[in-house]
């Protein structure tokens, strides 16, 4: 192959990349979703394989193991029913108090369960792919959570899959509040880019806030994306910034983002 064709190829790729990078955001987003569709058969195949593996694992346990599991599940069910009864009482009381004080009633969250089918192949982002899309009513900026706590928000929506930007990614800033002290701040990625991905920063806190390790950090409900009182994590340590004018806390996330397999998408 001649030297000339080497440089022609270089020029072709350079021009092509400049054209693609110069496309409007809406067009490149559509192209991304279209090309991502090439992977749908593989995602489907992987999902079926996982389903088959879990079916096989339910066949293998012995009668004794199954009986033990059943007893455990019955015990947990009893406990949860008891908690639910208490919760319903508190909920009714809360609604009555809200009515009497003229506050707007709080409606319970409407959620849809989604399976995590992939993660960002690039190491510098923190995103997930889920198996719900526009056909399931998913829209950008919907909050995503698990029973343990907040996961992130929906970023891009395809027909049958969506991309979720997780807490700890620079593109998912969460207005948050320390539950005990009621101090509000914003959860941002760890500023030092430490090795532990479970740590994020809670910044813009008042310098006088009496924060202690172990305190719960929840969503503050400020802004339009995240509803109030979803657990984000717990304070790991606190440091003072700006000559004591502000404080910044490191927060250990409650949800291990590397291990989650299912998430709930919260509908407005």
């Amino acid at each position, binding site marked *: 192959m001649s030297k000339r064709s080497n440089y022609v190829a270089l020029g072709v790729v350079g021009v092509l990349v400049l054209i693609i990078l110069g496309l409007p955001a809406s067009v*490149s987003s559509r192209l991304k979703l279209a090309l991502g569709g090439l992977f749908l058969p593989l995602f489907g195949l992987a999902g079926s394989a996982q389903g088959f593996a879990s079916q096989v694992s339910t066949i293998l346990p012995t009668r004794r193991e199954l009986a033990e599991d059943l007893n455990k599940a019955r015990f947990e069910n009893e406990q949860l029913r008891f908690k639910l009864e208490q919760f319903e009482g508190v909920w009714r009381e809360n609604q009555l108090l809200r009515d009497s004080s003229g506050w707007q009633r709080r409606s319970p969250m409407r959620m849809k369960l989604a399976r995590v089918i992939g*993660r960002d192949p690039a190491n510098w982002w923190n995103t997930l792919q889920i198996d719900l899309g526009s056909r399931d009513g998913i829209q950008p900026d919907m909050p995503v959570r698990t029973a343990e706590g907040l996961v992130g928000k929906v970023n891009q929506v395809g027909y049958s899959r969506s991309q979720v930007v997780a807490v700890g990614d620079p593109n998912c800033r969460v207005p948050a509040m320390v539950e005990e002290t009621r101090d509000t701040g914003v959860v941002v990625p760890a500023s030092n880019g430490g090795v532990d991905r479970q740590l994020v920063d809670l910044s813009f806190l008042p310098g006088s806030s009496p924060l202690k390790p172990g305190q719960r950090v929840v969503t503050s409900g400020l802004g339009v994306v995240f509803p109030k009182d979803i657990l984000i994590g717990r304070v790991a340590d606190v440091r003072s910034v700006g000559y004591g004018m502000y404080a910044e806390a490191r927060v250990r996330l409650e949800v291990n983002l*590397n291990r989650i397999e299912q998430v709930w998408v919260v509908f407005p």
Partner: protein
Amino acid sequence: MGSLSLAGVQVLFLAIAAWLAVFAGTWCSSWRVLTGVQFDLLPALMVYAGLTRDVWTVTALSVFAGLAFDSLSLNPFGVTVLPLFFAGWCVYVNQDLILRKESYAQFVLGVAAGGLCPLASLVLITVFLGNEIEPPVLGWRYVLQWGVGSLCGGVAVPLLFRAGAAVRSGFVYEVVPDNRFRGDREIKRWKV
């Protein structure tokens, strides 16, 4: 099977390998849980293509693999194409000077590509980011990711050569080595 169709099989092998490599990077979470880093096989694949194929295959593969990678990532669309192309192109241009059959040469090239491709992508991301997304936060975590990514690239190139040889052996007859003896020195036997 003729040489043209064998070339087609090899290009198809590369395209399928790129498709699977991007999917594996998205789907396999056990390696990420273990090391905190996701492996990326595309730089290694570009080195393999640069050492074994022509410049147009390298071009087509880098465009396909780069766009496929970006389609599943938060990266700006198309930003991964150029680093992958450069990895394959630089290897291709110096193809005759590289001891391509030596495993250590393959390892060194894999380490270099596995380390330089993500760095180049990061530089391009910060240049072409636009206003829609925030830039990634870099720190010690990234140094670890970079180191593990380079090593993965180094290990992957010799493995790809073995896989490529296995695919090739499925489509062509094994070449029988020439007789070491000269034809006129061969002992002829016949019945008297």
